[in-house]
């Protein structure tokens, strides 16, 4: 092409607010007010979900029973991420973990912190560290750290 190719730069910036809903709000209030992790149990398959969900993915029935969980768990998988777009409130490298919380099925996605990346392993025991200032969000958990519990 002989024509100078002009590039137009833009940015989409739209504020949103998302209602968390009754189930999620209960989970976040537990984190915020009591530093507690709550999940919920499916009446049909007995799976315990954390974060809790309103309807069991497997069984298509409402989950009603609330279960108080420990703040400890086991690392099911992890990755050391060497880049950041500034979304996570962490410096690189960022360690993400899928953490099987004691008493829950499946796993919770969160950060693993206060540890050298090379020292993280699958099967490692971890414990939640709560943020000092909690606002009712997933970041009320600061990260999970290695634990002997």
């Amino acid at each position: 092409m002989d024509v100078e190719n002009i590039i137009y730069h833009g940015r989409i910036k739209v504020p949103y607010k998302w209602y968390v809903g009754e189930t999620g709000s209960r989970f976040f209030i537990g984190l915020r007010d009591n530093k507690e992790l709550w999940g919920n149990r499916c009446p049909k398959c007995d799976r315990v979900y954390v974060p809790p969900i309103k309807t069991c993915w497997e069984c298509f029935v409402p989950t009603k029973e609330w279960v108080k969980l420990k703040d400890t768990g086991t690392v099911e998988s992890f990755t050391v991420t060497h880049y950041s777009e500034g979304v996570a409130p962490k410096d690189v490298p960022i360690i993400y973990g899928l953490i099987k919380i004691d008493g829950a099925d499946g796993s919770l996605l969160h950060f693993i912190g206060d540890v050298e990346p090379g020292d993280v392993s699958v099967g490692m025991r971890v414990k939640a560290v709560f943020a000092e200032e909690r606002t009712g969000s997933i970041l009320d958990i600061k990260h999970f750290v290695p634990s002997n519990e």
Partner: protein
Amino acid sequence: MEKAGIVGVGQTKYERKKDDTFAELVFEACTGALTDAGVGIEDIDNVITVSNDFWDGRTISSMAIQDAAGSYNKDVSTVEGDGVFGAMYGMMRTLSGSFDTTLVVAHVKGSEGNMNLITNAMFDPIYQRKLGIDATSSAALQARSYMEKTGATEEDFARVSVKNQGNGVNNPYAQIREKISVDDVMKSRKISEPLKLFDCSPITDGAAAIVISNEKGMKRFKKDPVWILGAAHFSDSYTLGYRDLTNSRALEAAAKKAYDMAGITNPLMELDVIELADAYSYMELLWYEGLGLTPKGKGADLIRSGATAMDGELPVNPSGGLLCAHPVLVAGLARIIEATLQIRGEAGDRQVKGANKALAHGINGPCGQAHGVFVLGS
């Protein structure tokens, strides 16, 4: 049962930074498919466009390219998801009898946005998005889980990249056309461990289109169609953590349904070529298992055996796959196009000799949440 077939295919060359606008890419792919089919736009009864608003940076991205898709005065519908689902929808529209022919077109310009931020936004805003997780870091979690469960190694993942990049050299549409070694992959930059640069598909621009016709519509076309023998699309749960990332049950279900429709009982023996969604190297091993080519946990054995190499018993990704060009959304349609060219014997240097039955696969959602499978044959 009423049948549908693919009668025309068109794709742009896949590149990192194309000067063309979305509409120009769509027009090139559509006219390519129509020319290949030997018909004009007047022979198309309805149009499906495949696009994503966040990738395009505009609301109703589908509406902005309707002129380039030739949809004026035609019934149109739109898909936001992988192109394989666009093809599925297009096929269903012809099989419904409401339309005899469908033009399906997908486009993306990965280079114009920011892949990490856009794929971060596919995660739930309340529970996961704020953590900064994206397509690559979530894939890395899946890759690690797979290694833990099966004993597959980073070298096994590297073997996939080596095979597919080796194949990509023969594909004039591919973006990356450069042979690499296992050592090159192992020494490439760490992105999100265990994934390294050469385990990850590139950022790509491009468009692809296909024309689908039912039996009644076939009289409009001179070429023999490539028939759709089976097709299915299944999804697993959305939230990362709820599903077992090492067990691709959505793919298993989709493959089983497509195989049943196509009368396939032993895919490794009966299929001649596969084009699948290797967005990250390890995925190919996991999808081998989901497609029933190998028992669960044995994906690494299959790549090590050489069975899926160009000279193996079932070549996988002769085009180089997504590791050589990953136009998001377009990728699934490109897999169908590659499978079609293989069956026609028109795949040039990447042709699998005598290919008669081919499988095309596409994924959608984090870590292959949803899977679409097409079985095609002459």
